[in-house]
């Protein structure tokens, strides 16, 4: 099988954003009849590589080759013409259009320039049968649940009759039954000679389906080898590159103090009627599959989206914060997952970003205290080892340093509750370790740290307690020894296991 020519390759591709390199010379070759796994931590560059392979982005240097021939300007349309289809993690569907139109979008059959709806109907019916979509084809996608939309996305890729199929976290919102259908489908396609690239955090899926693996770490390839003879631990070692124990600071003896946050019957966004509490000195993790309400739980507590609760006490005051200002006043702060869009004012200087939440507190008689501000900024920069001129725009910093700024700006408020949303996404390993140390330090100082994370090892090794959300409800609450990757993933996927009883 190895001697078959690759259908799609990347050769020594480099790609950076705003001067931060994301891919540093990556090679990957997808061969027919093989399921190829792409592994790597969050921020290792997987999404960027997929976007290069599917024509959504152009490499800064290096080439993309189809059937061994380098292609010049690659676009999504050109990729489709070459038989490459992608199932995106972020859905590419249009809510108001029907299932059939969504599946055909970008690849419509035409007659006299118009969409041939009869032909479309035939083709769509076939792929929907393959993925087990039984909903009426004229139904708008807006009416479907997230898992069903994911199946539409898969049907959309199949409709293009791909020679190369790239699946980016396809099972993240699928039920066990749907995931089973998908697994069967992948085997069928593989036997027909399709080249598949499979990206997943679930190592058991990777082991069951894939025969070859490429591992990305900090923008480079650390492994490109056959999967035969490698067990789960071996996979983790390939990904992390060190024993996970090194990364995380030792857990202090849990010694929770006063109740800082307590809500009952809490609803906000996707979160429906849950109870949640946290004590001073605790690190509480929030886990679950993508988009199960983790972010809405944090934003609801932070007063950033409308929320209600049957009973709520935050920082020993009754009721939820009405808005972000009230939350800040109550000692709550929030570090968003998407720091470029939500956490930082990118074109402004490091100094402006660091001082933004403290502007009002430092002002005297309505005017800003420039000297006081400069002192505070210098102190923060020193404390978080942010090097260089603080007048530089924050977008010139690397992902890790940007995250430090997003966190550091809150320190002058002396927060009692820190809400963090995936704080280590796209952060290099050294900064990750610094952040973990800092969070441990916060807990030791008697602050409550609530951290939502898509990185399961992080939840296991950092948190004193883990709440797993599923479809907006608490699927499990784990503490101490009961916290394990199996328990978290099991609860997240709705599989009842020992020790995961809700």
């Amino acid at each position, binding site marked *: 099988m190895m001697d078959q020519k690759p259908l799609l390759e990347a050769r020594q591709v480099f790609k950076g954003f705003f001067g931060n390199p994301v891919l540093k010379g990556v090679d990957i070759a997808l061969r027919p009849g093989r399921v190829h796994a792409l592994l790597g931590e969050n921020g290792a560059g997987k999404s960027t590589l997929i976007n290069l392979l599917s024509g959504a982005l152009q490499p800064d240097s290096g080439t993309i080759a189809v059937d061994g021939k380098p292609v010049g300007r690659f676009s999504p349309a050109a990729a489709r013409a070459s038989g490459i289809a992608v199932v995106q993690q972020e859905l590419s569907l249009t809510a108001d259009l029907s299932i059939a139109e969504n599946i055909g979008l970008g690849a419509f059959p035409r007659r006299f320039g118009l969409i041939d709806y009869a032909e479309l109907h035939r083709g769509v019916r076939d792929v929907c049968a393959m993925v087990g979509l039984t909903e009426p084809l004229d139904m708008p996608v807006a009416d479907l649940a997230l898992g069903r939309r994911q199946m539409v996305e898969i049907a959309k890729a199949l409709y293009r009759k791909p020679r190369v199929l790239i699946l980016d976290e396809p099972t993240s919102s699928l039920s066990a039954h749907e995931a089973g259908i998908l697994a069967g489908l992948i085997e069928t396609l593989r036997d027909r000679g399709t080249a598949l690239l499979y990206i997943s955090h679930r190592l058991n899926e990777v082991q069951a389906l894939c025969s070859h693996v490429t591992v990305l770490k900090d923008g480079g390839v650390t492994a490109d080898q056959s999967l035969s003879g490698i067990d789960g631990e071996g996979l983790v070692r390939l990904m992390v590159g060190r024993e996970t124990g090194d990364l995380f600071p030792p857990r202090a003896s849990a010694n929770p103090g006063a109740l800082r946050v307590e809500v009952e019957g809490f609803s906000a966004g996707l979160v429906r009627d849950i109870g949640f509490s946290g004590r001073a000195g605790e690190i509480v993790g929030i886990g679950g599959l993508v988009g199960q309400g983790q972010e809405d739980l944090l934003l609801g507590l932070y007063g*950033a989206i409308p929320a209600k609760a049957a009973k709520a006490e935050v920082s020993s005051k009754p009721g939820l914060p009405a808005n*972000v200002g009230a939350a800040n006043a109550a000692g709550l702060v929030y570090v*968003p997952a998407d720091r470029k869009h939500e956490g930082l004012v*990118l074109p402004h200087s490091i100094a402006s970003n660091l001082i933004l939440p403290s*502007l009002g507190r430092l002002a005297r008689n*309505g005017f800003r205290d420039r000297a006081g501000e400069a002192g505070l900024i210098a102190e923060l920069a020193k404390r978080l080892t942010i090097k260089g001129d603080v007048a530089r725009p924050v977008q010139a910093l690397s992902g890790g340093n940007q995250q430090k700024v997003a966190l550091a700006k809150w320190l002058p408020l002396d927060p009692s509750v820190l809400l963090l949303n995936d704080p280590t996404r796209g952060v290099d390993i050294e900064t990750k370790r610094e952040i973990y140390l800092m969070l441990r330090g916060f807990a030791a100082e008697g602050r409550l740290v609530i951290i939502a994370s898509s990185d399961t090892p992080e939840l296991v090794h950092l948190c004193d307690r883990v709440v797993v959300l599923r479809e907006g409800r608490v699927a499990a609450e784990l503490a101490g020894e009961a916290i394990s990757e199996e328990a978290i993933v099991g609860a997240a996927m709705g599989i009842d296991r020992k020790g995961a009883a809700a």
Partner: protein
Amino acid sequence: MSAVKSIFRNPPLLTFVLVALVWLIAGLTLRGFGAYGHLRYLLELAAVIGIAAAGQTLVILMGGIDLSVGAIITVTAILLPLISPAWDPTGLVGIALALAIATGIGFLNGAGAAYLRVPPIIMTLAMATFLQGLLVVVAGGSAVTVSNPAVILLGQGRPLGVPSGVLLWIVVSAVVLALIHRMPIGARFLAIGANPLAARLSGVSLTRNTLILYALSGFFAGLAGILVLGMNRQGYVGIGDPYLLTSIAAVVLGGTSILGGRGTYAGTIPGAILLVTTTALITVVNASPGWRSIMFGTLILALLLVSGREARR
């Protein structure tokens, strides 16, 4: 060399240098341009634009555009003579009332944008249209003459030979510059202009700042309206129309990004002077309103291309 480079990196300074160059060249080549009386006249005209553009600068810094500036100027200029009470010999009560109305209109703009989520451009456009209709119904379309002594003093007085409009502009400039650079609210406006979501999650209240912002814009437009009224001695429907475009143009000429988040009123000041000067020069070559409109449009588009390119970098 490095001095030249630093000028190009500093848009307000660049605009100042441009003004100086244009004045120098025009003064040497055009008869009467460099006369004190003419330059004073240009500054007087620039003062109105500068004051109207004070609010516009703040709005654009925060990522919006206020299309009701012209309508608010008209409203103030027409209503002030009608609401100035006869028992007040100073005329200050009338001014206070007119400014309160202008600020109130601005506040309504802010409320529409903040609470009803109407995009600010649409909200202020709707407000301008609404006011246009209301004025004709209320004031009936004929011109009203002002007799308020304070307004006439403001429009015509020249303490120490300096027009009082220019003096008012200096005060406004000091206030606005302090607001942007020395007060927390200025930094908040800038943060919202560059990234509203990040600003909100950093504890900056969008609602509160939007309300304050548009109220301020209304206030400054009202102030400009009073000055225009004093200079013309008459208010009529359409008196404020020219100031909508010129206020936007003065802001972007001063190097403020039309996309928000970057800029300063220190650029708008020379921007307003440059605008008045070029308009005066165009009038010399007898340009029609059509050409003027094309010039403003092209100017905004060109600066949009420049600032858009920088924003993407």
